[in-house]
């Protein structure tokens, strides 16, 4: 699965004791409550195929395994090898670069598109159908499509050489990174646009009417009402972008294979390359573990710093 669509949700767990409504009578409250056995089959299945492998990845990162035979304990050998591996260090920088590029390019773009799409224009229904088509394509299909479109000999660059220099966008680091950033933007902007569109629609109109009366123009309204009201959606969307950026894989595999050389080898691709091409599963596990830890820490930091976990009302200032 692509880690495409998950989000930092408002916790929807069982109600906390303090918020429990007093039951009509003790006898009634006990009746008709399912026990935890109802949750057990799903929990066991999930533990087996997600939690156990997560624990195993940590263990395997201290072992050496070539895919055959049984893994051998090697201590911190994988880790120290990766620390001294110039390609690994480069991959970390490339991952950061692509992730930051993604956030910086997609956030303003999807806010503008989302706010625009939340309004009332003619032909909006037709337009939004076309806008959201990239969402319907799998990451694989998107990458295959762009690989074909940007083919140096048969694609668009061959037709419009004046725009693309020598036409081979995959031959240099800068243009190859540009292609990767562009393709992820093309693929994921519609998704984030949907997030912002939903959020922009739920902004109370009364705020705009009040600003109108105070004589605030359209741009002032945008910066003083719309943006602050979109704060929580921005946090959700950015977490998704960051986690998505850290785990970008298909685009690199299909578009650049990490090349030219190792110039677009980002960490997730390097992990695959190490494990399934080089049969060094220990090193692959270590990179995977580092990715999980990084993604989790970043998400937690964003949530903490922003106070998102306190779920501050988006109705602040409306009183």
């Amino acid at each position, binding site marked *: 699965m692509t880690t495409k669509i998950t989000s930092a949700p408002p916790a929807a767990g069982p109600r906390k004791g303090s918020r429990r409504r007093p039951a009509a009578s003790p006898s009634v409250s006990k009746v008709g409550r399912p026990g935890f056995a109802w949750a057990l089959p799903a929990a066991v299945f*999930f533990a087996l195929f997600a939690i156990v492998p997560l624990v195993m990845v940590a263990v395997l990162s201290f072992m050496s395994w070539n895919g055959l035979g049984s893994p051998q304990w090697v201590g911190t050998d994988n880790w120290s090898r990766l620390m001294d591996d110039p390609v690994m260090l480069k991959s970390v920088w490339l991952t950061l670069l692509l992730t930051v590029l993604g956030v910086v390019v997609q956030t303003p773009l999807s806010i503008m598109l989302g706010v625009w799409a939340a309004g009332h224009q003619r032909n909006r229904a037709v337009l939004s159908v076309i806008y959201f088509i990239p969402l319907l394509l799998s990451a*694989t299909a998107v990458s295959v499509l762009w690989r074909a*479109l940007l083919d140096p000999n048969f694609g668009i660059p061959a037709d419009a050489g004046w725009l693309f220099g020598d036409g081979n966008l995959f031959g240099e680091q800068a243009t190859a990174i540009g292609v990767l950033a562009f393709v992820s933007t093309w693929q994921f902007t519609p998704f984030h646009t949907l997030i912002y569109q939903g959020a922009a629609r739920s902004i109370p109109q009364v705020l705009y009417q009040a600003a109108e009366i105070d004589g605030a123009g359209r741009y002032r309204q945008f910066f003083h009402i719309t943006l602050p009201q979109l704060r929580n959606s921005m946090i959700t969307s950015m977490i998704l972008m960051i986690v998505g950026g850290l785990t970008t894989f298909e685009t690199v595999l299909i578009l650049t294979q990490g090349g030219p050389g190792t110039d677009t080898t980002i960490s997730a691709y390097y992990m695959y390359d190490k494990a399934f091409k080089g049969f060094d599963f220990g090193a692959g596990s270590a990179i995977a573990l580092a*990715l999980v830890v990084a993604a989790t820490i970043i998400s937690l930091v964003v949530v903490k710093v922003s106070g998102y976990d306190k779920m501050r009302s988006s109705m602040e200032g409306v009183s």
Partner: protein
Amino acid sequence: MRRRPNYLAGAGSLVWLFLVGLPLYVMLAATLRTRQDYAQNGPVSVPDTFTLDNYTGAFDSGFGRYFLNTLVVTACVIGIVLLLVPPLAYAIVRSRARTTSAIFRLFLLGLAIPAQAVIVPMFYLISEAGLYDNLLGVILPTAAFCLPMSALILSGAMRDISPELYEAMAMDGATPRRMFFQLVLPLSRGGLSTIVVFSALQAWNGFLFPLVLTQSDSTKVVTLGLYDFQTEHGIDIPGLLGAVVLSMVPILLVYLFARRALVQGLMGVGGK
């Protein structure tokens, strides 16, 4: 509120329309023309030939089989999700046991686990279980990775059922099981269709698990077929794009008939 149109935003959205529309046009045009036409006149030109060979060609190179495999994977994943998630969501919403909230937290944690993170141990586990290169070996992890989001979506839907209804049934001495089948399932139809669409999309578009856990032609799924076609016949761009368009058809059909469920399925809970 009627206001003057926002020209700047309108212009920006037109630029975006061009960026999205042009590739889609090139893709469709390329699939309906011959290879010679495409090679001579270039991708952006207007086709002067018309052919369906690119679509039939995709089936000749094995895509019929890949579609069947993908369909099997998708159907089984939906089956597992529908079997496991409704009872889980029901327990999350209604149970007062401490263990249940611990289980719910486990699933919330699961939201943050990317598939890439567990792919190495998954390969180990599936190989050890003798399921390597077997569709079941793709189905099980794919379904597992659909559970957290599905549980979240469905428990959100079940939370909207009013407590009075439960209380009325409890007064009649209904068991949890009867409440589940007579009250909860019928009233959470919207949530159920969302998780079906969400899981179907994940299974249909899944790439990493099939890539690592299968190898032969008989277990190949569509996404993997596209990838291999690209590496083997990269210069047959019209044929390749024909396969890409075919891989979209089922999703477009869902989009036409169940647009709302599809958008919700795509968004997970991101939009809330």
